[in-house]
């Protein structure tokens, strides 16, 4: 097994997911089987191969720096789970 329970817990914290004990065990087994399957790519020699992050040869897309309309404030806030005036309200941070 590549992935230990401790690593599953660490990754879950990085991903901001609270997992139940049952989920931790299930994901550990399932992720291990996917990762084992993915091992076959290590058979390939890629030392001189450049990575493809993106398939199109476009870079540094620019546009004129002109004013344009933005979403009205009310529409921007319409989906807020909790709002306070013109702010998104969140639980205590510090």
């Amino acid at each position, binding site marked *: 097994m590549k992935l230990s329970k401790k690593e599953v817990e660490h*990754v879950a914290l990085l991903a*901001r997911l609270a997992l139940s004990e049952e989920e931790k065990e299930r994901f550990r087994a399932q992720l291990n089987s*996917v990762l084992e*399957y993915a*091992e076959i*790519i290590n058979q390939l020699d890629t030392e001189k191969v450049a*990575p493809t992050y993106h*398939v199109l040869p476009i870079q540094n897309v620019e546009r004129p720096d002109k004013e344009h309309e933005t979403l009205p404030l009310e529409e921007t806030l319409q989906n*807020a789970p909790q709002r306070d005036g013109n702010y998104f309200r969140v639980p205590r941070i510090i």
Partner: protein
Amino acid sequence: MEIYDLTAHELAEYIQKGELSAEEVTRAVFSRIQEVEEDVQAYVTLTEEKAYAQARHVDEQRRAGKKLGPLAGIPVGIKDNMCTKGIRTTCSSRILENFVPPYNATVVEKLEAAGAVMTGKLNMDEFAMGSSTENSAFFPTRNPWDLNCVPGGSSGGPAAAVAAGEAVYALGSDTGGSIRQPASLCGIVGMKPTYGLVSRYGLVAFASSLDQIGPFTKDVRDCALVLNLIAGHDPMDSTSAPNPVPDYTSFLTGDIKGVKIGVPREFFGEGLDPRVAETVRNAIDKLADLGAIVEECSFPYAEYALPVYYIIAPAEASSNLARYDGVCYGYRAVPEKGEKYDIIEMYMKTRSEGFGAEVKRRIMLGTYALSSGYYDAYYLKALKVRTLIKDDFARLFENYDVLVSPTSPTPAFRLGEKAGDPLTMYLSDIYTIPVNLAGIPALSVPCGFVDGLPVGLHLMGPAFGEGIILKVAYAYEQNTSYHRARPPLQGREKVKASGKTSGGR
């Protein structure tokens, strides 16, 4: 044939001649929805009122003597991951269950400007992660050809709706096969255009370097017409290609004499249902009969595409889905009764309650592949193999105009059959995934049946080679009758009245 069985170009002709009104067409589609939706369950949200308003507007324009666009007045369904202003857009996820976008996706703007009639928002695997639509947080969609089977996924709603006559055409998205595989399993035409041909602005992101919007239609001409409508550069999407867009219907000549077609032998190997293999081989023979030059070829990196995809796509997803934090929109979990939570606890509770199992699994996988110590071994390695796959396609397209394969290794499978084992489910996209990694276009066209279930022929072309794919697909379709087959779906009321069974083979 009923009105809801007709293609968009047939209906458009009736509307333009004044033989049918857009309102009549819309009524026919909504009464079909009334009849079969209980069984198929393709829609998350219906937009009936808006549809009739749009249809009446088209009818008024026609009466006023205005020239109508080629798809004006035709009912279209939209996969529920494309933003529709004022209409909830859920991605079939609890976390976006009540999200109402304040803007339209570019493709939706384009449809509206062209006089499209929007029937509603269609079901999908949550965040487009899946191959069966069983990962919808709301309900699974069923295959109109056999209600015990899945419609494929992730765009199962769009595919099932078009096949069942609950929409004349639909838009879906394809990250690893999510248009082509369900189109194949539901017996219709589905295309993933070249990466960058269609704007992704307003498409809820899954894996940004792979996602692309495309059409589900009843035939190849409709596919070309829809592509005409949605293709083109968009300043709102920085990955949108500035290439000029041809009239795709100009490729529908029916003549494929001398077109060079490669058949990669790796796409006919282990895991392929022999009956599907035979059906696809027959279709390839048909292409040769029509004058195409067919040759076997080799795509040596084929077997590496799936593992590469299941590193890159979850990695990009884990980053994209970080935005669902319960702050600006979407679901936010409430603290346990009598307790308080801080912001980190709020994030964790929100995401754990809001995401389903497959989404969590992929976020975990992607987070792991990007985490320190594993980035080079998994993510960077996968990106390098992606280059090999892309170059392999480029090499093949020096010799061939089009490559062909099955779209999916099996016909539609039964609900629940693969739900317990993620890896088995992932294998159903084995022929479609390489295309997304290379960014090239591909299309699935109906090419026969196995036990009454549709089989699709997968045509792949070079980047921006939609024209040649459409040309070959059209020639094939015009010389076969599979695209005219409709599922034997009656709806429960009619079944009761006639005493017959519905949804069988």
